[in-house]
């Protein structure tokens, strides 16, 4: 939830600028999507159940979950119109996220 709120305050402005925000987690995401829709955040929540995409991106924290399961490393990636990576932030402490203002700056710099 905290995660969602953090993103929420952050990226609605980017959204208006014509950016697609894809939130990827192992959750089925129905609740997240409802919450986001309720807040009119217009994120698209994608379910990466088996972490296949996190693995392809090198973003797996092995046995990092509360029950010793693999979890994604919190990360934000800005991809431009041509599908090229323009900005990456990978957190080394799962409490920490990129400053939304920094993400916005990266998006505006495209």
């Amino acid at each position, binding site marked *: 939830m905290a995660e969602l709120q953090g993103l929420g305050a952050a990226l609605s402005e980017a959204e208006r600028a014509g*950016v697609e925000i894809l939130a990827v987690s192992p959750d089925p995401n129905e609740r997240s999507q409802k919450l986001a829709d309720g807040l009119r955040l217009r994120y698209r929540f994608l379910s990466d159940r088996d972490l296949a995409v996190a693995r392809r991106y090198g973003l797996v924290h092995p046995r990092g979950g509360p029950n010793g399961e693999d979890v994604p490393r919190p990360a934000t990636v800005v991809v431009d119109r041509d599908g090229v990576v323009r900005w990456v932030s*990978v957190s080394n402490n799962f409490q920490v996220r990129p400053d939304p203002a920094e993400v916005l700056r990266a998006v505006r710099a495209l």
Partner: protein
Amino acid sequence: MTSTWLVILSLAIALGAPVTYALLLRMPLVRNHPEGYVVAFAVAAVLAGLAVARARTRRWPSWAALALTSLLLIGGAWFNWVGAQVPRTPTALRVGERAPDFTLADAAGRSASLADYRGQKPVVLIFYRGYW
């Protein structure tokens, strides 16, 4: 300051810090400085230590405060600098290179590919742990 007031101040800081952190989590300044609550626990433990030193009669409240704040300090420091750390292994992401394509189902069951957006609009991908 009397021992009693030092105990009260110590406990107020020790218990107020995590509450404040939780309430202000939306602010990047707070969220991205989790060591702030560890510092608060350290200040609280020092105040409790002072309370112990100043206690004349009835020493147990100051000792109890010292025990509690020390536990919070150790627990908080462990969580922030050990428990919450993510291994710094290299990722597959290089700025200037193409992002690996993928296809996943969204909450409504429709499939979404990164490639769908190519030539359309930029994408911000947010990977998150999901259960909180």
